[in-house]
């Protein structure tokens, strides 16, 4: 993809973000934050690309360690984020 289409995507996505989050009731401020925080763990896609790449002969394997660490931290972010959000929302719903 060329730079212009990728920039277009970025700007439009920001606008979509502003449009969908308009009025948030205060009750949902924390769940919205932790839920969107889990979505920002999308970096996991990049982490998987890094940790799954094949090292070439004579190449430093440092990228693998960075990739592995990235997968771990991104997964904590994703799994923990969605689960904790679900736990909070379940409390709001049980009545």
């Amino acid at each position, binding site marked *: 993809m060329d730079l212009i289409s990728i920039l277009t995507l970025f700007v439009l996505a920001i606008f979509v973000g502003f449009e969908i989050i308009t009025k948030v009731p205060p*009750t949902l401020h924390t769940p919205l934050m932790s839920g969107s925080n889990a979505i920002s763990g999308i970096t996991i896609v990049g982490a998987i690309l890094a940790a799954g790449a094949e090292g070439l002969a004579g190449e430093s394997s440092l990228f693998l360690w960075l990739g592995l660490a990235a997968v771990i931290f*991104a997964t904590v972010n994703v799994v923990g984020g969605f689960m904790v959000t679900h736990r909070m929302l379940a409390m709001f719903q049980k009545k």
Partner: protein
Amino acid sequence: MQNIINVAYLVASILFIYGMKGLTHPRTAVRGNLTGATGMGLAMLAVLLDPGVEKYQWIIIGLLVGGSVGAVLAKRVEMTRMPELVALFNGFGGLASILVAGAAVYKPSIALPVGYTTAQYYQANIATAATGLIGGVTFFGSLVAFIKLAEIALGGSVRIPGKTVINALLVLGCIAFGVLLVMDPSNSLYYWGIVVLASILGVTLTVPIGGADMPVVIALLNSYSGLAAAATGFVLSNNVLIIAGSLVGASGLILTGIMCKAMNRSLTNVLFGAMAEGEIASADEVYAGKVKSTSADEISMLLDGVSRVVIVPGYGMAVAQAQHAVRDMANLLEAQGVEVEYAIHPVAGRMPGHMNVLLAEADVPYEKLLEMDQINPTLEQVDVAFVVGANDVVNPDARTNPDSPIAGMPIIDVDKCRTVVVIKRSLSPGFAGIPNPLFAMDNTLMFFADAKKAFQEISASIKENM
């Protein structure tokens, strides 16, 4: 294959948009969160099919370790500890972005396709520098927020002399390393230089902010973690990272705006300024001889025959873990036909929506949690208002004294209630560091006690009198 993967990324992006939209309405919030999680699962399945992914052992180990740590943290954490957990998860997202861009520095083929163009080359390198900067600020900023919220250290507002100059130098240093990195991306030292300076910047930006300003910072860091993911998306030219990251960046900014508005302060003021300077009356002048203290028995007598009670919680309720004791007293009153409601200030607590989460944990139905604007016009008809560990958000000076440092901040007008009971351990000031004339008012009674104990005693006393 690449087409299938890209279609899956597109579907995942749509699921993220629906998920975030769902999270903004109480009825659809659970479904919204599950929709977001489904999108994430789909994006992860799709990337596993990427031809660049050739080995699976490290990925599986990482997923297992990270997944179990995340699950245990999410299951075990107490609701009162939620702000610091959210801050920590947020930081991990930023850290993951730093590590991914770092991996691409050592192995450019992760970021650049075979036969890449010059434009792609510059895009990836500039984005790598940006990821190091945003990721470093996000990770260390969140870490400092975590340390503050968990009350490990750095409590309150810590002064850093000359912080504006220091921050400006750090940003300039990051830009300088960024230029060097773009000119010679094979030198990984330039990348780590950016990360180190950005990390220091994350610390110097967050350390001076404390107390009641924390909800703003948490919301802002949330936004940064999204931008860090989007920047990583530019490194890898990956659609789903850019879309998901921008969505989070935008929603975090909106929340930040809501929090700033609730304090009548601009974002720059929260980030760079101290509280506004103003005429500060001394505590003695405000309180001397006018503060009346009370006891549980007196309060239970006061509650005899009332028809409307409002509870105003603040950070002190979270510290004392008093939400269940508060709810128990409310149940007793409701059994006697008293109408009990909760008035929630938008920045009460240390995280947006902090009080709502705690009270929901204690089974308080959310229809009883009223926003400031809803409850303020009706406060004159309230017989007794309980202020539980809140201070600056009920300080009438904000409304009546134009010289006050918090002048103009919207507050909950509890001083208009017939009687105000303030439950607080001492007369110590809140985050703004100013005395609160509410405590010295004729219709105010102070109950100096730990909030949890206080409500347990009041409940016991109500039962005795029944």
